[in-house]
């Protein structure tokens, strides 16, 4: 069965320092993986997606993630945190049942705090 595990429920960093949000997935086949961000009182926004092309995926706002099949990981990184990055981040795997649609399976989320 498809699943995702976000290894940290909370991460706190200083502004200007690197961000690492960890995600491991379980999948019986090559998955589609996503990172979504949810700012307070705002809707979910897609940060980036991996769909079996390049293993290093670049997203919006300077975020990127690397798909590592050997480690079943899809960690999200950013070289330098900004105050505006404070939000909830969700690692997501797409389950594609027969019928060709995409049921998204969400991790529990990681709350990123950025302090001055």
């Amino acid at each position, binding site marked *: 069965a498809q699943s995702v595990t976000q290894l940290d429920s909370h991460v706190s960093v200083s502004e200007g320092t690197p961000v690492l949000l960890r995600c491991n997935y379980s999948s019986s086949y090559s998955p589609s993986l996503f990172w979504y961000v949810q700012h307070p009182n705002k*809707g*979910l926004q897609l940060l980036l997606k991996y769909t079996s092309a390049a293993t290093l995926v670049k997203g919006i706002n300077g975020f990127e993630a690397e798909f590592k099949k050997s480690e079943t990981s899809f960690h999200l990184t950013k070289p330098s945190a900004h105050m505006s990055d404070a939000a909830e981040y969700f690692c997501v795997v797409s389950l594609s049942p027969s019928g060709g649609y*995409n049921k998204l399976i969400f991790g529990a989320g990681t709350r990123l705090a950025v302090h001055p």
Partner: protein
Amino acid sequence: GAGVSQSPSNKVTEKGKDVELRCDPISGHTALYWYRQRLGQGLEFLIYFQGNSAPDKSGLPSDRFSAERTGESVSTLTIQRTQQEDSAVYLCASAATSGTVEQYFGPGTRLTVT
């Protein structure tokens, strides 16, 4: 262009009452999904629509939950005889086609059952 919209944004209801939540997907999107987000948790899949039919209802938690979609556009999620455990944010997402991996989410409806 307009994104996915949902109404109401907030709904407070008494236990035992019925509620209807509305979703307007992006125009032309044939795939529509409903999810639920309980406090402090990730999203749980509820139901998927392709056009007006719902091939996957596997995430609906009980028979008190139902959903329909008309005109390949608006969808309503109905919860009958609400219970306190139904309190959550209900999110709707649409995608251009069933095979499109990227889903666009609405802002959600926050349901509070007192």
